[in-house]
């Protein structure tokens, strides 16, 4: 009888892991991927949609088309996991058993944790949010734009910096840059979490007249007064407010007691195995690892999880451990971009922004569907 591997979540990490386990073990494994929507969404595209540079249609594809034929896709929602019985309870009723479980359940947005956020702020962390922001920007006549962060950790750490650079270009092209101010309200005492990257981007922000507010961790939004306050005790007025919403782990993780107090799954940083349950692994945004929550992290972690599970099923030793590898693009506007690359042992490096990296990002956006979900690029 084949081993049963169940993968929860059809994002980048879950899709690659399911395909690689199936490819590596063939008929000796039955892989089932469970996803509530059955659609795979390319989330880095939300930013481009918000700024009118891309249409929402290219951001989603049928998950079935991205999975190997041998992988079964179940369109359902996992509501509870019993790690001792090794079963997953499904929203439509019934349970599925597993020998190994992969939690690729991502992050969920907890917009209601910040008072006034839903009524007063925009975001580009969902397709609906990105479209709403695009409409707001289309009718924007100039004024004070504030980009802030309402909770940490959040997906795609460079996104707020990218947004202010791309917005600056957008407002300039629309002829309303001179009638606007742009402020990046950073939770830290610099523009970006990584110091080396901050040193690179802050002079560019200054040259483009983008203001930097520091140590501003959003506490509440007051839509009537059009102000936003921080837990540090400051208040900032705005005409258009864009916030990264608070993030939490998936509901099923919290309901099953498999995560920390915010629902992030505690895993070994090398094997990505659950700290308490040796038949459970986690990938990407779902983990509690203190590295970027990003598609690239999930992309680099998925082959490790596949290798770990395949080795256990075969009774051999896994070939791969996760070394903390992350690679992100950072758009700096005006057809330029840089990258951020690091791992557990090598601090981040960022080259000077150039056209080459901007083109590379667009090529990646275009080639994503044919390469990444299948595990063709490592």
């Amino acid at each position, binding site marked *: 009888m084949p081993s049963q591997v169940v993968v929860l979540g059809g994002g980048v990490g879950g899709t690659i892991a399911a395909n690689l386990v199936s490819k590596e073990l063939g008929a000796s494994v039955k892989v089932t991927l469970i996803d509530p929507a059955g659609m795979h969404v390319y989330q880095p595209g939300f930013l481009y949609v918000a700024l009118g540079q891309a249409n929402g249609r290219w951001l989603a594809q049928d998950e079935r088309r991205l999975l190997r034929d041998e992988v079964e896709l179940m369109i359902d929602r996992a509501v509870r996991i019993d790690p001792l019985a090794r079963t997953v309870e499904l929203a439509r009723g019934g349970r599925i058993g597993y020998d190994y479980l992969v939690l690729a359940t991502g992050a969920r947005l907890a917009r209601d944790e910040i008072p006034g956020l839903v009524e007063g702020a925009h975001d580009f962390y969902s397709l609906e949010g990105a479209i709403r922001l695009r409409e707001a920007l289309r009718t924007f006549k100039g004024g004070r734009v504030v980009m802030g962060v309402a909770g940490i950790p959040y997906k795609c750490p460079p996104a707020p910096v990218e947004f202010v650079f791309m917005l600056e270009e957008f407002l300039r092209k629309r002829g309303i840059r001179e009638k606007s101010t742009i402020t990046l309200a950073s939770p*830290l005492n610099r523009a970006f*979490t990584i110091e080396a990257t901050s040193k690179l981007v802050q002079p560019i922000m200054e040259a483009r007249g983008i203001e930097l507010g520091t*140590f501003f961790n959003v506490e509440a939004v007051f839509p009537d007064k059009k102000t936003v306050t921080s837990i*540090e005790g400051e208040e900032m007025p705005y005409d258009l407010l864009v916030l990264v919403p608070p993030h939490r782990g998936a509901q099923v993780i919290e309901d099953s007691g498999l995560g920390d*107090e915010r629902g992030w799954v505690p895993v070994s940083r090398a094997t990505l195995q659950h700290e308490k349950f040796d038949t459970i692994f986690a990938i990407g945004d779902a983990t509690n690892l*203190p590295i970027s929550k990003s598609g690239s992290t999930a992309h680099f972690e998925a082959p490790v999880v596949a290798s770990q599970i395949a080795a256990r099923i075969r009774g051999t030793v896994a070939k791969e451990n996760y070394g903390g590898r992350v690679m992100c693009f950072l758009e700096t506007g005006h057809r330029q971009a840089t990258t951020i690359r690091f791992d557990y042992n090598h601090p981040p490096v960022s080259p000077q922004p150039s056209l080459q990296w901007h083109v590379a990002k667009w090529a990646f956006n275009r080639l994503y569907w044919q390469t990444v979900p299948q595990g063709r690029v490592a």
Partner: protein
Amino acid sequence: MIAVQPTKSIDARGMACPGPLMALIGAIRQGKVSDVIEVWSSDQGSKTDIPAWVTKARHELVSVVEENGYARFSIRKAR
């Protein structure tokens, strides 16, 4: 020195900067006034970042204790 019993301890050793500060901000967000949060950090950047944030956010830096290869920061949530 009188030892202050922390309400919560966060072992952020091995987290690259600004992981320890981010963990502290998260704990302060979730905590109650007068809670004492202890953060263990092996990152050199924490020695400037954590006191700078505590001052800006008007909380209280109770102590910084150097250990072998890391430092223990105790912060009281003041408001």
